[in-house]
């Protein structure tokens, strides 16, 4: 019971923290959704309307627009910056406070950080459901896609938490997190649909779990993935989660031995 209590408290605390400045929260949400969508749309506009092309990688202008609008919903749910917070705790010595408490610092930082994303996921789901009814998409597909996107959120944090342990050894480890986020931007399908990659380069995104964050959910929500493909994606996501859970245990066990608790 106590174990559940602190998790709920951390969630509440995280949500209150994220939404303390409501106008700021709203502006951030609108900006992070609207501008990337606008840029994607402009690219398709340039290719189809200005360039006069009728098809790109088997997709029409309408297909690409549908991808853009749907992917915006899932790109709001993907990742967060709480892996940076974890790294900063290690670097600055703030981790010491958490080592004395009966909670896992990795889990605590995640639960606190994911509260905002869960709230946003709820909003996106409602918007998506309304849109689904309007354009004739299957709302259950949207629900499944959101579950996949949330699994992607866990994977993203787990990878970040593993990378964060580099801070036990190296002051500038935040750079690796920055690089990870840049790579995720392009390989998650947030900037462009991943099927635009040339055939001989498709392996690049298939070998990482990043496509499960935005591209996979979008494809399923739009009905471009069947149930078997979706089931496979869920299984792959679970496998990555198990892999990273073990990875976190190993890297933290190794890293904590080197923790100096400077500052804090």
């Amino acid at each position, binding site marked *: 019971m106590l174990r559940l209590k602190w998790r709920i408290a951390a969630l509440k605390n995280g949500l209150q923290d994220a939404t303390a400045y409501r106008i700021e929260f709203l*502006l951030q949400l609108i*900006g992070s959704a*609207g501008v990337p969508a606008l840029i994607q749309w*402009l690219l398709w506009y340039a290719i189809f309307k200005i360039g006069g092309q009728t098809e790109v990688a088997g997709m029409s202008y309408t297909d690409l627009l549908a991808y853009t609008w749907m992917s915006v919903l899932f790109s709001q749910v993907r990742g967060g910056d709480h892996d940076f917070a974890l790294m900063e705790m290690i670097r600055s010595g703030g981790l010491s406070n958490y080592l004395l408490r009966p909670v896992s610092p990795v889990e605590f930082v995640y639960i606190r950080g994911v509260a905002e994303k869960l709230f946003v996921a709820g909003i996106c789901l409602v918007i998506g459901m309304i849109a689904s009814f309007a354009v004739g998409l299957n709302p259950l597909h949207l629900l499944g896609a959101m579950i996949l996107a949330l699994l992607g959120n866990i994977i993203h944090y787990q990878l970040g938490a593993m990378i964060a342990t580099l801070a036990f050894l190296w002051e500038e480890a935040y750079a690796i997190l920055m690089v990870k986020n*840049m790579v995720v931007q392009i390989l998650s399908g947030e900037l462009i649909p991943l099927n635009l990659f*040339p055939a001989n380069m498709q392996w690049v995104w298939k070998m990482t779990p990043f496509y499960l964050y935005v591209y996979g959910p979008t494809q399923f929500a739009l009905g471009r993935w069947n149930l078997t493909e979706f089931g496979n994606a869920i299984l792959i996501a679970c496998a990555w989660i198990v892999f990273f859970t073990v990875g976190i245990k190993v890297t933290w066990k190794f890293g904590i031995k080197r923790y100096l608790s400077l500052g804090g």
Partner: protein
Amino acid sequence: MNRTLTKYFRVFFIQLKNNFVREAVYRSNLFTMLFVDIIWIAVEFSLFGVIYANTPTLAGWTQPQVYFFLGIFFASDALFTTFFQRNFWNFSDLVNKGELDILLTKPIHPLFLALTRWMNITAIFNLFFGIAIAIRYAEPAGFSGGMRWALLPGWLAVGVLTAIVVRFAFSIWIFWTERSFALSRMYYQFFALATKPDALYPGWVRYVILTFLPFAFIGSVPARALIHGLEMREFLTIVFVLSGFFIFDLFFWKKGLKRYQSASS
């Protein structure tokens, strides 16, 4: 006039020296940021690489022309990042924590000190990367080269000046809002519009990024000016828009100073 300019140059070089000494202490940071910048450039190139794998031209721009544009954009952005960006992130502290007090007492314009105090010398490598990329793709992009390379510093200056006045227009509201994070973030979201050539955009978006949010002046217009040249109307637009932003920024800076309540702001 000359003496005033000399004084400002001297102050600028002292700030540069101080920042260099501070950054020289953290040498590993230099290599780390270099690595991050290379990845950023690689991601931008990959994005256009994937798009051009599916289409021969993008709104009339060939792949080498877009890469030439990226080179100019990276160089221009590197100058802003090196000399000014950090000051804008610290701008809210100046107002909220009352750190502006000390700048107001100096015998030099406080805005000059506020915008040149902190530098990020490691970002200067991107300037070299950007110029190298521009040189590499200049010929296939149709840039005639030769003496026209002498125009490059001028266009880079236009890019930096644009970034300063627009970023300032997003930051100045700190005197009224007390929290500037959302507006700063919004600036960087709109800044994404600068990472693509303006020719890609439909009429109304193009109008916006050439007037109210002139992000096209950072890389796109300079690249277009170097490759194709600009019409007189476009030159006049640049002068008019940048002057407008300059007047707007100064007006609100003065208004903001009147609201400033020192350390208790």
